[in-house]
């Protein structure tokens, strides 16, 4: 892939990952949020593919394929089944209202740019300059976990965090050795399955997937 079109494709892919993260804070419908997550997974895979093709790195292309299957298809499918079973599939009352959390995502993005300074300085390539976008996605994920009150949207927050970190890893280091990538992917997949099973149990015990009900344990 040639220089300028490589840069544009990379920018578009990384930008799409961040925009999907912001849009998940915008939407209330859980199904829409999960679909955005799937879109983000595809964008992330596109970044890996573009980087892999540019560097003629077969492993990275393979990782891109794994990411498409895992984050674009498998995880959203698991989550959509939970959403379909939930009777009121909307994020009704997040701790921070939507306009304020949107402004917060903007602030987090700027924070990511500030924090990632040393990284950008160390990697003077197109990919290096995009690292703050991944960091911003990760921060938005943590923020989503902190303010969202539904089990599914907390899992989504966790996956946003994971996608952001994966984006940083692809852009900054060209990905990990395949064993580690596979291990990490497997871990995340299992984690979501675990969370899903737990969510089902919560549903059985508490009747809702609203985490505000979890207040029996405290000091």
């Amino acid at each position: 892939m040639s220089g300028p079109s490589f840069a544009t494709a990379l920018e578009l892919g990384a930008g799409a990952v961040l925009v999907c993260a912001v849009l998940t804070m915008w939407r209330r419908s859980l199904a829409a949020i999960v679909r955005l997550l799937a879109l983000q997974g595809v964008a992330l895979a596109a970044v890996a593919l573009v980087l892999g093709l540019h560097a003629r790195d077969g492993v990275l292309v393979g990782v891109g394929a794994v990411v498409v299957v895992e984050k674009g298809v498998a995880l959203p499918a698991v989550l959509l089944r939970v959403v379909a079973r939930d009777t009121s599939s909307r994020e009704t009352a997040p701790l921070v209202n939507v306009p304020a959390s949107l402004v917060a995502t903007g602030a987090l993005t700027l924070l990511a740019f500030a924090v990632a300074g040393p990284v950008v300085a160390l990697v003077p390539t197109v990919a290096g300059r995009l690292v703050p976008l991944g960091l911003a996605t990760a921060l938005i994920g943590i923020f989503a976990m902190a303010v969202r009150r539904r089990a599914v949207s907390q899992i989504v927050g966790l996956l946003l965090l994971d996608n952001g970190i994966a984006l940083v890893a692809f852009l900054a280091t060209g990905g990990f050795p395949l064993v580690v990538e596979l291990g990490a992917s497997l871990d995340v997949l299992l984690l979501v399955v675990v969370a899903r099973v737990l969510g089902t149990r919560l549903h059985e015990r508490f009747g809702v997937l609203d985490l505000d009900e979890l207040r029996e344990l405290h000091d």
Partner: protein
Amino acid sequence: MSALVRLGAAACVAVVQVLLVAGGGLLLLGVMRKTRSRCEGRVGPPVRQPLLDVVKLVSKQRIRPAAASPVFVAGPVVVAATAVLVTAVAPLVTSDPPLARSTDFFAVVLVLLLGSVSLALAALDTATPFGGMGASRATTIGALTEPALLAVVLALSVPARTSNLPALVREGIVDPRVVASPGRILALCAFLVVIVAETGRLPVDNPQTHLELTMIHEAMVLEYSGPDLALVTVGESARLALLLGIFVNLAVPWGVAPGRGAAELAVGSAVLVAKVAIAGIAIATFEVFTAKLRLFRLPEVLAGAFVLALLGVASTLVTR
């Protein structure tokens, strides 16, 4: 001599653009209503209906409230005048409009804002409850759209290192990669949301309603009649056409005439009409599937637009 020719050509461009936007704006309204009707399975009024309405209004008697002050009289005039002024100098048909060097994006935003403010003041002037309510809602929305709009301008002008509107359009023609850059895409998405909010389309405002609980723009112009109402209608539709014209020229800059020749202008006009019509039909189709949002949900939409524009600014920092 050549100065005179240049002046004549510039005037010619301005006249073409103003006529196209003023007349075309009304037809655009007609097209959007027709699209809506067809999607809903109705025949709907003919496309030229808004034009006929305006002609009818002009011939009617003008009635003004007894308490009206000059502010009330000035409202429609300022709305129409600001729209005409910006239309004359905006890069719509050609990327070399009159006063091209002074057509700053910030200035365009501020001049259009002047029109909105004067209309809100005029609505307050008669002290009717509907006017006040409409003005209050319109200013609330305006206060939310303005920051987003300014962020949009910032996101577009930082990478180009200029906020000159014709230059922004030309840059897109010269280097197509600029149009595909994430910063530009994000900013234009936000711009579209702002346009929908500023021109009172669904889901922000329903232009067809006269239900007191929901109307925003219509509540402000309730007191106008005859030629005054015609002026308001023309001014508002011109605003819609103008903003959509700027939007499509930034998003898809191809087909904009590079100079001021007659043939170029003809081609440019045709392309502009086609692009704006497509955009209008797209918006109208979207409106069919959308319900009006509650007023309290509006900040979410507009904050979203603001953040998108802010991300656009941020991504220009990345891509330089």
